[in-house]
């Protein structure tokens, strides 16, 4: 309302139409809390205390001087913990002033040791205490008569509000709030509603926040308190959104703060962050621009950057606008804003800003899906030249990511990551360390080294936060953590540990609520795990509906899964057309992993039509690709396919020798399903080599047959872990055959019975045992 802004014009600090909030550079104003601190300091210099108490008090001085205003209760409690005697003295002194007259306060200020005379005391003019005292004395002496009177009034209020309701235990209102005696207003029914809301808001705030925080209630905050509040909320928004206030509540606090101090530009910025949280483009753009409009004013004072302060903030304003549009996916708008920022940075020779622009430019190009390696490389070089470690290693990380998908050799990537890691630790860029670890996890997984991936993920998750001030945040909710946790879930799912998976997912859900920025990561991960599980258990009808959900989150993945379901449901023609489309798409976007998978699936389709020889070239191509990109898991998978094809083509000896190459990595890194399949295939090859025919004719090699029995047993163990009944049925069938030919009748009967049971349960006619991997 207009009335709030009336004050602006009467501001004595307004010159030339511009309000300089800090024309004298004085941030400190005498408040009742500051008087209490002064009283404490005074008593410390005056009285004799024991050494340990003295030490504890000394440790207290700095936080008390620099922290936000506390209530009297909190203040006295803190002091009491160190030295009850001093606390009592301070209380006495305050009481004297509060219960006395104005002259008592004036007397107090006149008795303070002047830092200019006391040479040998702690209050000498250059000491921390002396500086503080000088600030306070200066600020006090500047006050006009009515201001002094007002200060005295608020001191009285400060003192009495503590002693009026000591039993309550609730954090009392901040010092300067005028007497909040409107409780009787609740008698009128029209306000009861919002009054109660306020109350509820307050209490919930107090529960969620730490006790000793001064959470703002309805009243205004002091400068320090406001700054502290903003810093804390901004930090939490970045690192652990769940601990920050809920968007609506935060908005309300900010509105309140801005109502009392419209010049508090940072609040607009937090408002912008908060609106981003709820994906509100209108409000966030509005707040961002408002923030920079305000900043341009304060920028005039000039950061000691050499060039004019406000041109600088203009450039960053444009850059921030670009990032805003980028976040909302308005790439064209982002591009325009970025061009503007680049142009302005170039015109004013601001290399640092230019560098920031450049790094956004390649990010934007990447998001648009176009090639940006060259841009990134340039950016890294320039960043290194201007000594911007953050941007440089961010660029390198981006390069590593691109390199990984384009088949750069592993050692190069790891080397690059190691180099950046050195840089990170040197400059303690904790955020980048996290990203780097998450990236390593992803890269190891891509290469199919699940153990290494697991180890890296655990490393990240067990690392404690490196930020200096972390407001009690142990685990951050940054993207890096989300990625690591998703990998962890998938790794567990591969080993069939579904219980652990659901725990991890639960944690993810709590840490990244569905509306938040990174929630899509775990959503996709969750769906993929469910899908795989249903496919393994043969419940295709359950897997099918998941495909739509997956495609909503990731189109390529969705298409691939669709093909898989179609294949499983024997709708080969449709599956084939989907796979063709997918292959074309992925070859264009250089998505090698999917390309290989598509090739494998296509080969499987060929098997179904007994085109084993047509599958061979495809598989060889896939193998070459996988080897070229060092994708070990996919390579072993391809080898399995190859071996199966050879088996079918009647060269089991070759198949067995090929299999030997793959069996080791599969057993070491592969998922349970892969292990089972590999073993089943080995057993079948062994049987074939041993000379078994399905109808039990011919002479068999008993030694090999024995081996095959063992292999099958092992495979059965893996399959039963996943509850994969169809494959279990195959295993039992083969086992029965083997046992019969080995003459172990009782074993044979047992296996036959198991087969019979499963066959009845499954009801679907058993596909010819030979026809799948």
């Amino acid at each position, binding site marked *: *309302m*207009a*009335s709030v*802004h*009336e*004050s*602006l*014009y*009467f501001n*004595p*600090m307004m010159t*030339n*139409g*511009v*309000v300089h*909030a800090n024309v004298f550079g004085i941030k400190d*104003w005498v*408040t009742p809390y500051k008087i209490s601190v002064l009283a404490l300091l005074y008593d410390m210099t005056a009285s004799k205390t024991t050494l340990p108490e003295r030490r504890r008090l000394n440790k207290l001085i700095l936080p008390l001087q620099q922290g936000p205003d506390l209530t009297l209760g909190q203040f006295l409690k803190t002091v009491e913990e160190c030295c009850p005697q001093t606390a009592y003295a301070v209380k006495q002194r305050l009481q004297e002033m509060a219960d006395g007259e104005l002259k008592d306060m004036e007397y107090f200020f006149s008795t303070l040791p002047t830092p200019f005379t006391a040479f040998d005391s702690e209050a000498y003019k250059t000491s921390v205490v002396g500086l503080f005292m000088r600030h306070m004395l200066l600020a006090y002496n500047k*006050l*006009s008569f*009515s*201001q002094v009177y*007002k*200060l005295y009034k608020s001191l009285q209020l400060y003192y009495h509000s503590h002693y009026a309701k000591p039993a309550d235990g609730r954090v009392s209102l901040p010092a*300067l709030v*005028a007497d909040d*005696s*409107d409780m*009787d*207003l609740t008698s*009128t029914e*029209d*306000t009861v509603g919002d009054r109660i809301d306020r109350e509820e808001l307050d209490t919930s705030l107090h529960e969620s926040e730490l006790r000793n925080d001064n959470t703002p209630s309805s*009243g*205004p*905050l*002091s*400068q320090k308190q406001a700054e502290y509040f903003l810093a804390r909320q901004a930090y939490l928004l970045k690192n652990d959104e769940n601990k920050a206030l809920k968007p609506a509540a935060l908005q309300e606090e900010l509105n309140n703060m801005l*109502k*009392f*101090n*419209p010049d508090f530009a940072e609040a607009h910025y937090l408002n912008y962050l908060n609106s981003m949280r709820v994906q509100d483009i209108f409000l966030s*753009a509005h707040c961002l*621009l*408002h923030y920079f409009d305000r900043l*341009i*004013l304060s*920028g*005039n004072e000039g950061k000691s950057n050499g060039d004019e302060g406000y041109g600088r903030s*203009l450039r960053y*304003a*444009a850059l921030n*606008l670009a990032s805003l549009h980028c976040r909302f996916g308005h790439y064209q*708008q982002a591009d*325009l*804003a970025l*061009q*503007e920022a680049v*142009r*302005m940075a170039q015109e004013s020779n601001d290399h640092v800003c230019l560098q920031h622009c450049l790094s956004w430019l390649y990010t934007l190009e990447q998001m648009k899906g176009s090639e940006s390696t060259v841009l990134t490389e340039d950016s890294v070089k320039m960043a290194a030249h201007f000594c911007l470690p953050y941007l440089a290693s961010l660029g390198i990380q981006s390069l590593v990511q691109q390199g990984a998908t384009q088949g750069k050799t592993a050692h190069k990537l790891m080397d690059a990551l190691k180099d950046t890691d050195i840089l990170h630790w040197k400059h303690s860029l904790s955020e980048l360390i996290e990203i780097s670890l998450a990236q390593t996890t992803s890269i190891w997984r891509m290469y199919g080294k699940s153990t290494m991936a697991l180890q890296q993920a655990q490393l990240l998750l067990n690392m404690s936060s490196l930020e200096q001030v972390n407001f009690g945040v142990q685990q951050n909710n940054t993207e890096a953590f989300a990625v690591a946790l998703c990998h962890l879930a998938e790794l567990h799912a591969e080993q069939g540990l579904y219980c652990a998976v659901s725990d991890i997912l639960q944690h993810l859900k709590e840490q990244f609520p569905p509306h938040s920025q990174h929630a899509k990561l775990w959503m996709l991960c969750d769906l993929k795990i469910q899908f795989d599980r249903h496919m393994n258990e043969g419940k295709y009808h359950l897997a099918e509906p998941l495909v739509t959900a997956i495609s909503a989150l990731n189109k390529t993945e969705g298409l691939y899964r669709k093909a898989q379901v179609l294949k499983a449901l024997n709708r080969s023609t449709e599956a084939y057309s989907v796979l063709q489309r997918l292959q074309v798409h992925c070859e264009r976007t250089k998505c090698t992993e999917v390309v290989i998978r598509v090739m494998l699936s296509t080969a499987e389709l060929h098997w179904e039509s007994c085109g084993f020889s047509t599958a061979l070239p495809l598989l060889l191509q896939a193998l070459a690709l996988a080897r070229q990109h060092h994708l070990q898991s996919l390579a072993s998978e391809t080898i399995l396919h190859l071996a199966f094809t050879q088996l079918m083509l009647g060269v089991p000896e070759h198949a067995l020798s090929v299999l030997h190459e793959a069996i080791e990595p599969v057993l070491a890194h592969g998922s349970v399903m892969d292990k089972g399949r590999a073993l089943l295939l080995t057993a079948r090859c062994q049987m074939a080599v041993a000379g078994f025919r399905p109808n039990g004719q011919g002479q068999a090699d008993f030694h090999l047959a024995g081996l095959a029995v063992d292999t099958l047993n092992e495979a059965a163990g893996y399959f039963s872990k996943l509850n994969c009944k169809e494959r279990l049925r195959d295993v039992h069938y083969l086992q029965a055959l083997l046992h019969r030919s080995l003459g172990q009748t009782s074993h044979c009967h047992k296996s036959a019975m198991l087969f019979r049971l499963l066959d009845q349960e499954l009801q679907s006619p058993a596909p010819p045992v030979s026809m799948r991997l």
Partner: protein
Amino acid sequence: MKMAALCSEFGDLVQIKKQLISVISLSKERGLLHSSKWASELAFALDRLPKDELPPSHPFTEEDAQDLDALTLAKSYFDLKEYDRAAYFLKGCCSQKAYFLYMYSRYLSGEKKKDDETVDSLGPLEKGQVRNEALRELRVELSKKHNAGELDGFTLYLYGVVLRKLDLLKEAVEVFVAAIHVLPLHWGAWLELSNLVTNIEMLKSLSLPDCWIKDFFMAHMYTELQMIKEALQKYQNLIEAGFSKSTYIISQIAVAYHNIRDIDQALALFNELREQDPYRIDNMDTFSNLLYVKSMKPELSYLAHNLVEIDKYRVETCCVIGNYYSLRSQHEKAALYFQRALKLNPRCLGAWTLMGHEYMEMKNTSAAIQAYRHAIEVNKRDYRAWYGLGQTYEILKMPFYCLYYYRKAHQLRPNDSRMLVALGESYEKLTQQLEAKKCYWRAYSVGDVEKMALLKLAKLHEQLNESDDAARCYMLYIQDIFSCGEQLEHAEVSTALRYLGQYYFKNKLYDEASLCAQRCCDYNDAREEGKALLRQISQVRDQIETPSADLFAPLSNNNTPVRRVSPLNLISFTP
């Protein structure tokens, strides 16, 4: 209240006059100066009543008699702005009149103290906290009485004001509506209500008493909500109903015309107003804006001197002087006077915006941004401030950044061509020609005040080699320029003619081309080219006259573009 019962048909001017006279005395007794001024002005515009027709003075109750002495004393203190003293002597009085004055002086005392406090506050953060401490108590007492139904029209109004100051806007609206129902003639209550109505839907949803004063309110509201056509209609009706002499209505109509930028009409009305009421200061800032836009230096200077003689410490006077200096390009002084206006009334949002303009002129962009932001904070719907912010960023060469502000301004004034042209220019700078074309075309469609949109559109088409469209736009532009009659300084008719000449020449429409070329010769900057073109045409014509050309004549006709505009149009308007 009896007044409510008196509400009669709109046509009965005598009744209205009677009502006005009685409400004047009522509000005067209660120190409601602005309401009584408004009512008096209106009453003055109506015919004089004969002696026996004058309304009887209000009946004097027993309570009134009891409080008479205290009330008289308190009223004199009140008039001398000694509010606390007035309140002290009124305590315990039981008549309605005394109660209102008691509460009102407490309210004013709080407001006065608040204004005084702001000067010496403790620290920058505390300065926002200064508030009228009396408001809470007043609210408690008034709400008790309100629930008991003991409030009369004036106290209800006061209750509403208190609620509004406490930011309880919803309740305030209810109370104001109630106050209006009890006492429809109190203009202050209507005015307060108008500040709280934010959109037309809200206005429609209010249940207002059916009284002649409602028409005044609706007209005022339409002006506020930028529905100028409806507002003008309402005021016209009021004039026809017999309020033709009212200076209030004349000034309102003038302001309305100012809002739709019908400058000549507005100027005429303001001049009329000055004749009728030479010592009037209200609305003179708007008048000076008009004079400024028309760059009428002597008139503005006269107005400024005149107003200074009347009262130099008025917001309006300061704004007029600011405009005067601005017109004389003495921007520092202008800014100084706008600052003074703000010192006199910080709620005066026009001055913030104008100050922003001055800083812009002085190239002090950061101060300009600050001033505009203040204006927006006072009133979010101030399109001039948004537009000014956009301009500032445009000057800082941030065409993308300023788009947001221009869009905001455009949103508030969808039919104002200036915002559209500004948007178009920004898009053009960003090489978003498609958007730019849309903006220019729309600017032309909504009635381009500066007549620049078409020219810009044409040039854009020219750049994009869309010669047919470009020619069409130039043609429209020429029509537009000549049809508006007056000669505009920046008009680029010669450019248009030059292009059209070349265009027709290329399309082998030699008659039209030569016509354009001849016209070109009327302008200094295009004379040579015009002559050159004429020469070319005559050469080509000579060739055509040779027999071989006959073969191609029909062919060349087919070649002419289908969408060309009939060149005959050009003949109908001569410069």
